[in-house]
């Protein structure tokens, strides 16, 4: 097991740059998630680590070895595909022993390893079944098993739960997490699903437009996003933004938005321009009838224990996450105000969050 490091990695397909000058260190035994919308370069990054695509420039280190230009078969990694890519013409046992046969293991050793992996994944009872007769979850387990038997330096997974239905995905998520704790192997996992990322990852890298925007622990990504994109992409719904048409300077703790004054955490740096954004998460807002921004209720979504209320205001639509007990009617006039000082100012020019007492 070992560390994975990518240095100045870049990949272009003709004129299109899929991954731009990326740097990343994935620690030994870490469960690392690459998260982003489709087309953000996360899968390309993973495929370069696997050796299925060769980088246009840059280096990839697996342990101490630079592997960027090696063939996939020469890097000691395992890959789990979204479509599982189990060989349909072989039964489960042969699928699991296929990678070992190539490496010249003795028959007895292969049998031992296959059975060990099968037991760990609880697929030992279906070893002689055909792939086509398996359920999605069992196929997933077999695909994991095929990766597992090799005991590779790292596991790479490309949206492996993407084709499962919601209920099963949750279950497999738990199993995957448990499996990772059991075998403690460096894992790089690609997904577009932030809930999956949040529940699985030790650290998450959020990508957009071929760039890695932030790589941090899930709670930091959520609470202290480094860019406006990360803030809006993470969270369901994402952060609310209001335009602030004034420059922000160091030590400032009040902003004007359309004539109304709002408290903000004490700022620690100046903004670059005179157009910035005030960002606040929906759960940090509250509804009342006497102070704050005026608006009318536009929509209400029930999420079981919580409720998301969309308010139409002069600053645009605002999403508020409230307790289920709050009852409002459509088109009712309400007022919204921040519940606390968990507010982030984003620089309008760079889209980066400005340092403040709240986010340092």
């Amino acid at each position, binding site marked *: 097991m070992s560390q994975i490091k990518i240095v100045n990695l870049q990949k272009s397909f003709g004129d299109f740059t899929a991954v731009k000058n990326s740097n990343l260190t994935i620690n030994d035994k870490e469960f690392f998630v690459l998260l982003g919308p489709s087309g953000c370069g996360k899968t390309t990054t993973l495929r370069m680590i696997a050796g*299925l695509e060769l980088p246009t420039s840059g280096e990839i280190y697996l342990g101490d070895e630079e592997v960027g230009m090696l063939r*996939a*078969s020469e890097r000691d990694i395992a*890959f789990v595909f979204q*479509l599982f*890519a189990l*060989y349909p013409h072989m039964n489960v046992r042969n699928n699991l022993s296929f990678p070992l046969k190539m490496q010249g293991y003795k028959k007895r050793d292969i049998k031992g390893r296959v059975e060990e992996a099968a037991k760990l994944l609880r697929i030992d009872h279906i070893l002689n079944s055909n792939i086509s007769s398996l359920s999605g979850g069992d196929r997933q387990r077999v695909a994991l098993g095929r990766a597992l038997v090799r005991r590779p330096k790292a596991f790479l997974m490309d949206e492996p739960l993407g084709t499962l239905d919601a209920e099963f995905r949750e279950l497999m998520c738990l199993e995957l997490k448990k499996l990772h704790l059991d075998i403690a192997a460096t894992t790089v996992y690609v997904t577009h699903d932030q809930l999956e990322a949040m529940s699985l990852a030790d650290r998450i890298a959020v990508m957009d437009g071929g760039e890695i925007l932030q790589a941090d622990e899930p709670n930091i990504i959520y609470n202290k996003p480094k860019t406006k994109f990360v803030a809006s992409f993470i969270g369901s719904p994402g952060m609310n933004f209001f335009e602030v048409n004034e420059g922000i300077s160091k030590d400032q703790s009040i902003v004007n938005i359309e004539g109304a004054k709002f408290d903000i955490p004490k700022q620690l740096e100046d903004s670059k321009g005179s157009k910035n954004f005030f960002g606040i998460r929906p759960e940090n807002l509250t509804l009342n009838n006497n102070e704050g921004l005026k608006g009318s209720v536009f929509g209400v979504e029930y999420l079981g224990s919580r409720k998301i209320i969309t308010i139409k205001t002069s600053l645009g639509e605002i999403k508020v996450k409230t307790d289920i007990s709050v009852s409002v009617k459509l088109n009712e006039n309400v007022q919204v105000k921040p519940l606390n000082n968990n507010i982030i100012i984003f620089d309008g020019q760079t889209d980066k969050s400005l340092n403040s007492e709240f986010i340092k």
Partner: protein
Amino acid sequence: MDTSRSYLEPSSFSKKMAAAIIIVYAVITLIPISWMVMTSFKNVDSAISYPPEVLFEPSLEGYVNLFTNRSRQSQEYLDSLPPPKNWYEELVRSREMVITGPSKFLGRYSNSMIIGFGSTFASVFLGALAAYAFSRFRVPLKDDLLFFILSTRMFPPIAVAVPIFIMYRKLGLGDTHLGMIILYTVVNLSLAVWLLKGFMDEIPKEYEEAAMIDGYSRLQAFFKVVLPQAMTGIAATAIFCMIFSWNEYAFAVLLTQFNAQTAPPFIPTIIGEGGLDWPAIGAGTTLFLLPVMIFTIILRKHLLRGITFGAVRK
């Protein structure tokens, strides 16, 4: 109104209509074949009698004539011979003839086998490699190349008969097995590439990628993972190639005479006494039909799946 069936399910009336149409079509198709099989079991006289005999006494004369050369002898000579050793000698003697040796049929038949299966194997093998490359790699001028390959089927192959005849004479390929295998492979290859490319496109590239990550080279992944999954397409392609090269007549007449002559140009030339030996021709054609029929029946399951494969995404 019957509402128990789904809207998409055909009604029992249309099912019966479909069955009736298929039966009529099958009968029309089978008439020449059954006539051919019947002719093979007639004797020389009943084969050409008018009006044609539908009910007749079956005879194996056609088959005996197909496999033997015979010569007519005088009654005195026949009487001087020892009694016939087996049933076919007896049959020939009853026609006042003796067997002088085996005919060329078996040799021609095995030529057909060698050339048919040889060119089918070569077409499918080369076709699979080319189709894989077209399906997976960024080949320069890919679309133009594919069109060019297909364009070799846009004229009847016999249109190039004269240049090929001259070329083969210069190269010493005329009347050789190798020459015929190459020729049929060239004709079949475009079909094989196009058919197989369709099948390969349907196989997700993740399978080979998985195999390559598991330590296999691309070629190993191709043989161990891609080919087994393309079996359906390979079977369908093989049947089409086999049917073409097995039945090909025009080039065979033109390019082969002795050494590599296949059965199609040979069978119609079987001459009996005073004209064509129809029962022997019928017998030859019946036997000629068998290998393709068996080959197709064996691969039929794949063929049906193969033709509809790729029409609907699974």
